[in-house]
């Protein structure tokens, strides 16, 4: 059995502890350990992607307790892709952080590593309760990161975020508990098999449990009407933290795909596809609301935060359509939007630093010190996020629209996606012209410092990743097609997970005999 799968969880855990124990006093050492660990994580993620590239599903039984009794880590194409995305965003965010933002409070790098551990764990686990545990790991680290730097706004945003997510966790447990009570297993593959056999009143109970989970994932993904925490939270976090949070909403989307396509997908008997009728209208509304929020945004940060919401709407629309092509479009769009939005959050910080007192507010103010550099980066980023050719955003939306052509809901999807695309273009053009053209001359005194080169490098890296997705769209789409296909035809996944447990008699009763 290959141990590589456990590395994305174990490595950040050890790095985080090492930073806490060994490097409390030296920020330099913390930065070195943090950067080294994240760089190693990128390499490991590449190894894992190669391992999963041809569709192989690798199962790792923790403590050698085989599924469905023990907890397993499962690596398939979707997981490998998510881990690689996390690692890439993390390294860019960290390159930005070591230029200064990490010094504004204690333990930034330790929290960062624990956050990565939670993220990778959530993407790799094959067990529903274990997913809850990793959600909590990443959430508690994110609470710390959100509050990093202190200040009234962060504390105010922190209370909403923490309380809201704690209620979400309680709901998660209720959903998981209900599912366990009906089916008697929490292993996702086993669940997919057994959910199909449930019938009668039990099936109703199972569906209720599953839909409670949808509420939780909607909170994480910021799906309407549960996404109102996001603009305030992302708007008040430090820039590199906000960039890392660009991957946080994707955890909700990942979990939605995993649970409602794999477990409660087409083959789940009475509970088949139960989330999809809810998902499509909500996702389209989320897309509309996110775009309207972006148009109405009064500063660049909230503009970026609402663009995150809009991207969630786009992705979940694609997920809800439920075909191989649309799911593949969702996965492609997920990569694109994560990289670009993380880049935008970092860029907004750079712009805000050069605008004196106006910071990132959309009003007439002094010009930025480096209009060509920042304006160029801004243009590259917003053209991608608005979905204009030839960027990755265009490819993503094209894939989505093409996959919707044959479906009955095609009018709605075309209408909403194209209209919101235009509106978001209006929003970012307005913001860009306000910041870069509508300026008072001469520039705001006192002369602001130039952008530190490393910060620019971090942003350029993120935008380059998105560009690479557009340039190499062929191979990338081939990969996401494969991932989408195996999600909708989960036999390989289920077989791989349950293969080891065939030796154990299947008739071991749960619950001491009942029901």
């Amino acid at each position, binding site marked *: 059995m290959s141990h590589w799968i456990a590395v994305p969880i174990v490595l950040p855990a050890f790095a985080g502890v090492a930073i806490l124990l060994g490097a409390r006093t030296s920020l330099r050492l913390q930065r070195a350990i943090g950067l080294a660990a994240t760089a190693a994580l990128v390499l490991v993620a590449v190894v894992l992607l190669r391992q999963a590239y041809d569709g192989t599903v690798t199962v790792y039984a923790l403590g050698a307790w085989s599924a469905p009794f023990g907890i397993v880590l499962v690596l398939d194409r979707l997981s490998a892709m998510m881990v690689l995305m996390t690692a890439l965003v993390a390294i860019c965010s960290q390159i930005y952080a070591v230029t200064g933002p990490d010094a504004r409070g204690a333990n930034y790098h330790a929290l960062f590593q624990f956050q990565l551990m939670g993220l990778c764990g959530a993407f790799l686990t094959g067990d529903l*309760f274990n997913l809850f*545990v990793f959600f*909590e790991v990443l959430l*508690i680290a994110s*609470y710390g990161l959100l*509050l990093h730097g*202190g200040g*009234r706004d962060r*504390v*105010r945003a*922190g*209370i*909403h975020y*923490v*309380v809201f997510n*704690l*209620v979400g*966790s*309680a709901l998660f*447990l*209720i959903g*998981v*508990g*209900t599912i*366990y*009570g009906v089916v008697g297993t*929490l292993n996702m593959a086993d669940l997919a098999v057994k959910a199909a056999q449930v019938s009668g009143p039990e099936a109703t109970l199972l569906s209720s449990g599953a839909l409670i989970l949808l509420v939780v994932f909607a909170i994480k993904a910021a799906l309407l009407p549960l996404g109102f925490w996001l603009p305030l939270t992302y708007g008040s976090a430090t820039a590199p933290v906000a960039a890392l949070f660009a991957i946080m909403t994707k955890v909700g989307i990942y979990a939605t795909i995993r649970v409602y396509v794999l477990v409660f997908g087409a083959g789940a008997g009475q509970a088949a596809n139960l989330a999809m009728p809810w998902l499509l209208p909500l996702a389209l509304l989320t897309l509309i609301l996110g775009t309207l929020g972006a148009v109405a945004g009064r500063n660049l940060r909230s503009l970026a935060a609402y663009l995150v919401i809009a991207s969630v709407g786009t992705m979940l629309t694609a997920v809800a359509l439920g075909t191989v092509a649309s799911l593949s479009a969702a996965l492609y769009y997920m990569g694109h939007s994560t990289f670009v939005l993380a880049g935008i959050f970092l860029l907004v910080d750079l712009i805000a630093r050069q605008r004196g007192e106006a910071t990132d507010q959309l009003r007439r103010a002094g010009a930025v010190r480096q209009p060509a550099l920042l304006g160029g980066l801004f243009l590259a980023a917003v053209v991608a996020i608005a979905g204009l050719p030839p960027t990755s955003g265009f490819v993503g939306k094209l894939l989505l629209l093409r996959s919707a052509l044959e479906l009955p809901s095609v009018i709605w999807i075309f209408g909403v996606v194209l209209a919101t695309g235009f509106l978001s273009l209006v929003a970012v053009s307005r913001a860009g012209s306000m910041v870069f053209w509508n300026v008072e001359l001469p520039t705001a005194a006192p002369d602001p410092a130039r952008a530190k080169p490393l910060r620019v490098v971090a942003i350029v890296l993120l935008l380059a990743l998105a560009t690479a997705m557009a340039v190499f769209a062929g191979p990338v789409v081939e990969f996401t097609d494969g991932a989408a296909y195996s999600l909708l035809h989960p036999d390989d996944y289920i077989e791989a997970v349950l293969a080891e447990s065939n030796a154990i008699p299947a008739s071991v009763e*749960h*619950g*001491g*005999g*009942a*029901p």
Partner: protein
Amino acid sequence: MELLFATAIGVLVAAGVYLLLRARTFPVVLGLALLSYAVNFFIFAMGRLRVGLAPIIREGVTEYPDPIPQALVLTAIVIGFAMTAFVLILALRANFDLGNDHVDGREPEVGE
């Protein structure tokens, strides 16, 4: 026993939700705590309510309680404790930094 158990969970959830919807941080923390108790009971009950069963499997024992919900509850309790401690500290911090204990960080303009 089922009725008593279900009622207890229901009362805990109702009290928890009521407190959660208060606009002050301390009741909110208490509400979260009550809610997590209710959730813990709920998970526990999902292993079915039975009394007098052997906790450890030995030869000759055919009936034993489901150990998984117990393990789940233990995990949930630990996480719940940590989260409650954290949110309590956060609430205190907010009270000091913002000068009030309203969940929005500022007093509403009209009387409550």
